[in-house]
Structure formats: C-alpha cells, structure tokens
C-alpha cells in the first residue's frame, strides 16, 4: 500500500519536475536564414489550414484558394517550387516551430496575443466576414448588435478570421469553434446555434442553399481583420523579404485582383465539394 502510494507521489513529482525544468528559458536559437535555405532547397513549404475560400480542397482533391494563388506567385518570384502542408489549426504553430514548413500563409489574422509568439509580415489581405442567422432561433433581426448578447451562440471555424472577427466585434456572444466548416453549418441547421460567421461569400451561398433555415440579417461585413504571413521569430531577413514582396504585389495590383476573384466573384463556386 505504502509502496503504491509512494509510486504515485513520485510520478507526480516527476511531472512537476518536468514543468519546472521546462520553465527555464531556452537559449536564443541559432540565427537561421530562411530565404537562403528555401532557395537552396528549391522548395518553399507553406503551412495551410482549411477555410473556403482562403484555402480548401476542391472536388478533385487539389488544394485551391486565395492563399494558393498568393503562395504560388511568391514561389515563382523566388524561383522555387511550392509545397502545401495541410495542418489542423492548433497544430500550426508547433509545426512551424519544428520546421515542418517555412511560413504559414493561411488567412491568419494578426492579433497582439499571437504576435507574442510568432512574427507577422505586413498584412496582404483584409478579410470580410459575414453573419448568417438561424431562421428558427433568431428570425427578423436587422442589426449586428442584436447578436452581441450573452444568450447568443455563434459558430465559427476554430482559428479562422471569422472567429477573430466575432471576438473583436461581438464580444458578448458565446463563440463555439469547430474544426470543419461542414460542422459549423450543420450546427446552425440543426438549431443548436443562433448564427454562423465565415468569410464572404460563403455565408451568402449557405443562405441561398438553405433558404428555410438561414438568412443574412446584415448585408455589410464585419470590420476587417488584417491577415499576414506568420514566421518563426528571429529572422529579420525573411521578414524583410516577405514584407517587400507584399508591398510590391499590392502596388502592382496582383493581390487585389486575386482578392476580387476569390472574395467578390463566384467563378470558382463549382470547385467547392458539396
């Protein structure tokens, strides 16, 4: 009996020891030069999540979306190949730090909390998010303020710009986060949430598909969040390179043209699997 108890105590002590040891700050990581190593390797590896129309799998299984166009042009300009590494949102940062990919280009909104952990480039996009409400649970609303209430449940994809927009603009609502967009939609269709928030034009398309269950109470989008590439901390050269690539491609109209294609137009609508 005593023996078993002391084993458990030792196990706890072992784990706590782990916590304490781990708390000792790590020495500054050896200076890396990301751009050089990408060019030498000939491949840029990009971490991506899964949000329509930022980046998603098409009917045929290809990875497509706004981010894909951005990253492909970026790789072209560097003279290298591009490789996409699909990753679940909450595994994105450990994978970035472990070097599984070089940069995250995945509709990642800049927030001060996140910036404490990774470096962000200057923004290359500003998302428009829209809310679609449940006809059964919250009919005939016409203002976003109606949804900023403790009793309101809003569904969004974990880590998406939409989740960030809800936290910023509807702080009183209860935000529930799912890993997949299909689950977010199902949650509202089943009447378990009052509304969903997602990047335009998805909420409008959902409302058109399920007119008896979903409607768009407010046509205008949420205040924009700013999206940027995320990099490991400590590489100013890479940050400078990506920042200036973004500046050049804002100036030459490439980013705006691609933005309009994915977020305004619907030419890509039949790529989305049903």
């Amino acid at each position, binding site marked *: 009996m005593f023996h078993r*108890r*002391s084993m458990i105590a030792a196990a706890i002590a*072992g784990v706590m020891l*782990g*916590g304490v040891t781990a708390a000792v700050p*790590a020495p500054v990581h050896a200076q890396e030069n990301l751009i050089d190593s990408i060019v030498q390797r000939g491949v840029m590896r990009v971490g991506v999540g899964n949000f329509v129309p930022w980046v998603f799998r098409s009917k045929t299984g290809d990875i497509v979306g706004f981010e894909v166009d951005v990253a492909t042009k970026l790789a072209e300009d560097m003279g290298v190949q591009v490789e996409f590494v699909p990753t679940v949102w*909450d595994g994105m940062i450990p994978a970035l730090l472990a070097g599984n990919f070089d940069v995250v280009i995945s509709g990642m909104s800049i927030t001060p909390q*996140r910036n404490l952990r990774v470096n962000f480039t200057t923004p290359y996009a500003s998302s428009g998010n829209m809310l679609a409400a449940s006809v059964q649970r919250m009919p005939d609303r016409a203002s976003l303020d109606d949804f900023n209430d403790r009793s309101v449940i809003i569904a969004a994809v*974990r880590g998406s710009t939409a989740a960030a927009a809800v*936290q910023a603009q509807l702080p009183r609502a209860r935000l529930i986060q799912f890993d997949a967009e299909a689950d977010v939609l199902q949650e509202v269709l089943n009447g378990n949430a009052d509304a969903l928030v997602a990047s335009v034009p998805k909420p409008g398309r959902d409302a058109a598909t399920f007119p008896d269950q979903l409607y768009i109470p407010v046509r205008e989008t949420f205040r924009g969040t700013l999206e940027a590439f995320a990099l490991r901390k400590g590489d100013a050269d890479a940050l400078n390179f990506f920042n200036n690539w973004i500046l050049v491609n804002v100036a030459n109209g490439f980013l705006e043209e691609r933005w309009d294609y994915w977020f305004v137009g619907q030419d890509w609508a039949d790529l989305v699997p049903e």
Partner: protein
Amino acid sequence: MARHNPFVHLAIYASVMALIVWGVYQGAVSTGYRWQWHRVPQYLFEWDDGTLYRGVLIDGLIVTLQISAAAFVLMLVFGLVTAILDGSPSFVGRAIARTYVEVIRNTPLLVQLYVIYFALSPVLGLDRMSAAILTLALFEGAYAAEIFRAGLQAVPRGQVEAAQALGLSRFHIYRHVVLPQAFRLTLPPLTGQTVSLIKDSSIVSVIAVFDLTTEGRNIISDTFLTFEIWFTVALLYLMLTVTLSFAVTGLEHRMQRTVAR
C-alpha cells in the same frame, strides 16, 4: 535489501524520469521554442478588484467533471443491464447485449460521437452536453459490461444454487448474494475504465462542448501558447485521475478489512 528500501527505487525512478524530461526539453530547445509560462496563470485564476475569479481552464475542468460524473452513472447502468441480459436465458436479451457490445467496441468513438450528435440529436432533441454524455456512457458502458460479466461469472455457481435452495427470488439473489461479491471483484478494472472515461471525455471538443480540452484548444488558437497550455491541461487531467485512483485504493483497502473481519 532493495525490496525494503523504497528510496533506492525512488532514486532510480527519479533518474530515469529526469533523463526523459531532459530529452523532451532538449527537443523543445532545438526547435527554438520560447517558453512563456507567465501568460498561463490568467487562464487558471484571475484577480480583479480583490476578488478571485475562475479562469477558463478551471471552467473547463468543471465541465469535464460534470460530463464524467454523469457519464459514469449511465455507464454503470448500461454496463450492468447489458451484463445481466448477456447472462440471462433469454435469446433476445443475449442477442441485444452482444450486438451492443460488439458494435460499440468495434467502431471508433469519434464516429459514434458524430453520428449521435449530428444525426440522432436533432431527432431525439438532445443538446450538445446530453449528446456528449450519452456517447461517452454508451462507449464506456460496453467495456463496463464485459467487466461486470467477468465479475458475475466469477461468483461461484454454488452460491446461486444455495440461495435458490433457500427460496430467494431472482431479484434477491442478485441483490444480496451475487452483486455484493461481484462489486468487489470488478472495482479495480472499473476504476481503470473510469480513468479512461475521464480521458476519453476530451473527444467532446470536436462538438464544441466547453470542456477542459476545448478551452485549451481555443486558448491555443488565440494565443499560440501550444506547449504551455497542453502541459497545463495534461496536469489538470492527471490531478483528476490520480485523485480518483487514490480514493478507490482507499475504498478497496476498507473493503478488504471488512471482509477479513
């Protein structure tokens, strides 16, 4: 000699643990991870105007406890009913019991949760929390049924026959002769199953029940404090399961004394 000196074992154990921890730490260092533990306490407790508020991780821990407690009670019900049906002379009873146990044990818990929450819940009118509890109870109940079945079978046949000879009804035979003995035999494996239940409850994060794991994943998505939050969450689960193991060990000890007397 060493058998009677727990400190020797403890010293060996501590060295092995230290080596493992050092290895993990070196792995983290080589990725250049910068620990930011100072950002974690706010998610456990918050001071505001001299009042202590619960942080979201503690809220999540409470939800995990609620789910586990409710699922535990239902697990016992499902497990016991199934075990008794399985041991009954009725063909229908045995067929239902076997089908339940085999279907549940041979399909992934995640799939069961999705089917119950997204397909059955709208029909049954279950909310998120009830669907989570029902799924967990059904899953763990199938394993508990096997534990109970083994416990019931371990009670010697002669005891039931003796009770029958005394003219006890079927209910009273179970209530006063079989179940008390089976309970003692099933306690250790049932504790293991309950620990599994607590850990398996983390799967409800996929249907956005605000349990410990969901709160942890949401914080990680917002702050990118990946390892700090996962370690904290693991420690909270560990506290829960170790407390449970201690309590049951104490209970076993007391029951052994009762029997000895």
